[in-house]
C-alpha cells in the first residue's frame, strides 16, 4: 500500500542571479513497510527534501500525495488539509541528538504526542510502557533526558515517534551522535519497526555504513535523486 508519492517535486530558493535549485524533479514512492535511505553529502538537499516530505516547507512545484490524499499540487497546499494534524496523527519524527524535550521524563516525552491526540490516563500510560519496553528502556522511564546516554535518548525518541502508530516515520541522521555499535542498533530497531508496524520509514543519513539491509537507497546530489538499488 502506497503511503507517500512525490512527483516532479522541485524547490527553488531566491530568484534571478541569487536563485538556488535545492531540489529538482524529485520522484519517489514509498509503501507501507518500506525502509528507505536517503544518502548525500552536506548541501545536497537532504534537509530540504526532509522538510518538504514533512510538509513543513512548501515546494515550488510538483505533487505530494500522502496516505491517499493530495497534500500539495502545483498551486500550493491543498485547501482544507490540516497539516499539523496530519503530522501529529500520521507521522513520526526522529532527529539527531537533543530532540527530546529536556524538562519531560522519558515517559512524559513518549506520552506527549499521545496527549496531543487526546489519549490520556491509563490508556496512554499502558501505551507508553509498551513502547518503552519494546525499546528496552522501560527501566529508565522516569529519568530526565539529561540523565540518559545518547543511545538511550535515541531509543526514547524512537518510542515517541511510534506513539501514535504513524504511517510514515522520518528520521534525520538518527545515528549522527552515536558510536557505530549504538548507531547500528538504532538502525536495526528502525528495520524492525518498518516490518512489524508496517510503517514506511525514510532515513536521511550521510553514513553508508548504517544502511545495510535497507529496501531502497537513494542518493541526493545537487538536488537530484538517483536510485542506487
Amino acid at each position, binding site marked *: 500500500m502506497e503511503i507517500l508519492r512525490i512527483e516532479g517535486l522541485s524547490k527553488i530558493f531566491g530568484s534571478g542571479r541569487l536563485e538556488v535549485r535545492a531540489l529538482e524533479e524529485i520522484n519517489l514512492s514509498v509503501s507501507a513497510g518500506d525502509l528507505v535511505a536517503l544518502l548525500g553529502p552536506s548541501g545536497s538537499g537532504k*534537509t530540504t527534501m526532509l522538510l518538504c516530505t514533512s510538509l513543513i516547507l512548501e515546494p515550488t512545484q510538483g505533487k505530494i500525495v500522502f496516505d491517499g490524499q493530495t497534500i500539495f499540487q502545483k498551486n500550493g497546499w491543498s485547501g482544507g488539509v490540516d497539516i499539523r494534524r496530519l503530522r501529529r496523527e500520521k507521522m513520526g519524527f526522529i532527529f539527531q541528538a537533543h530532540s527530546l524535550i529536556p524538562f519531560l521524563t522519558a515517559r512524559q516525552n513518549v506520552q506527549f504526542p499521545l496527549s496531543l491526540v487526546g489519549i490520556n490516563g491509563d490508556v496512554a500510560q499502558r501505551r507508553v510502557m509498551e513502547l518503552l519496553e519494546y525499546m528496552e528502556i522501560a527501566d529508565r522511564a522516569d529519568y530526565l533526558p539529561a540523565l540518559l546516554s545518547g543511545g538511550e535518548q535515541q531509543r526514547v525518541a524512537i518510542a515517541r515517534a511510534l506513539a501514535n502508530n504513524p504511517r510514515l516515520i522520518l528520521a534525520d541522521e538518527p545515528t549522527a551522535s552515536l558510536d557505530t555499535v549504538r548507531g547500528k542498533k538504532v538502525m536495526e530497531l528502525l528495520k524492525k519497526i518498518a516490518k512489524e508496524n508496517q510503517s514506511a520509514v525514510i532515513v536521511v543519513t550521510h553514513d553508508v555504513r548504517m544502511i545495510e539491509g535497507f529496501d531502497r537507497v537513494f542518493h541526493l546530489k545537487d538536488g537530484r535523486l538517483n536510485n542506487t538499488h
Partner: protein
Amino acid sequence: MDLAVYDLKLHRGRFIATVIGVGLLFTIVLAMNGLYRGNIYEGLAVINAINPDLWVVERFRGGPFNEQSTMPEYYHYSVKAVPGVEQASPFIYYTVERRIGQESRHFSIVGYDIVSGLGGPQQIQAGRGLQQAHYEMVAHPKLGVRLGEKVPLGLHTYTLVGLTKEAVDTNGDPLVYLSLPDAQEVLYQKDNEEIRNQRTRLSRSLALQNSLSPLAADKLLPSLQPDTHIINAILVRLKPGANRAEAARHIEDWLYFSTYTTQQETQLMLKGRLAGMTKQLMLFRILLMIISVVIISLVIYTFTMEKIRSIAVMKLIGAPNRVIVRLVMEQSLLLTITAFGFALVLINQTYHLFPKTILLVPEDEIITFIVVLFGGILASILGIAQALRTQPAMALGGQ
C-alpha cells in the same frame, strides 16, 4: 499534560529566585498602596476625629490644617450668638519639636476648651481625659510617654493623664492634647529673659515719646505686650435641626470669617497639602507596576528562548499553537501569581515595621492583583510571539 509546571520543576531554583525578586517588587507596590492610604488617613485623621458641624477660620483662609489661620480668642462668643449655634469652641493646633526624655520629638499640640470638649479626644485608650484647666496632657502612645510621666513643655511641666490612639497629626506624628490656655502658653509664652528684654525695648521706645511722662509710660507698658489669646479656628456644634448653610452664611456675612464643613475641610486637605504626596505615590505605583511587567516579560522571554528548540520539536510533532501559547502564558501567570502571593504574605507580616503608617485595604490588594494578572498576561506576549514565530524546521536543523 502541564508542560509549564514540568519546565518550572526542572528550573526550580531559578523560578524561586525570580519569584523572590519580582515578589519584592510587588511588596514595594503593596507598601506604596498602603503608604498612599496611610498618607490620606493620617492627613485627615485629626479632621475626622474632631468632626464639628462647622469649622470657622480666618476670612479667605483654608485653615486651620491646610493653611495658617489666626483670630482673636474672644470671637468665639460672637459665633456662639449666631442663630442655630449650640456650641462655639476655640481651637488651636500647631507643630513643635521638643525634647521628650533624651530624644528630640516632632509632634503637634491641640489646644481646646475642656469644658465644651469640642476638639478634644473622644476615645481614651488608657487613663482619663483632661479634667483640670492646667498642667495635664493626653497624648498618642507614639509619643513614647507613659501614664503619669511628667513632661516639661515651655515654662511648665505637664502630667500625662491619658493615652488616645484616635488621631495623629497630618504628618503622621503624635498628637498632644492640652487645655486651650496651656496650649497658648506653650506656643506664645516667652521665657523670663525674653520678657525682660522685650519690656526694656518697649520702655526705650516710649521714653522717646515726649508727650508721655515716665509714670504714664509705665502704666501703658502692660497693654502693649503681645496678645497670647490667639486661636486658629472656632469649632461649631449646631443645635438639632438647625440649618447648617444658613448658620454658615450668617457667620461669613456678619462676622467676616470663612466656614467649612468637615467634608469641605477634608477636600481642602486632599487638594492642598496631601495632593503632592498622593500624586507622587500614585506615580511610583504606576512606575513600579510597569517595571514589574517589564521584568516578568524579560524573564518569560528568556525562559521561552531557552526552550525554543523544544518548541520547534513540539511544532514538528504537530502540537497546535494553543499548546505552545498555554506553555508560555501559564509560566508567566504562575510566576506572577506566586510572586504576588509572596508579596502579600511579606507585606502583611512587615507593614508594622515601616516608619510611616501602611494602611492595607483589601480592595487595593484585589485591584493590584487584577492589574498584576493583566500584567502577567501582557508580559507573556513577547514570549508567545517568539514561540509562534519559531519554525518547526529548526528541529531538523533548517530555518
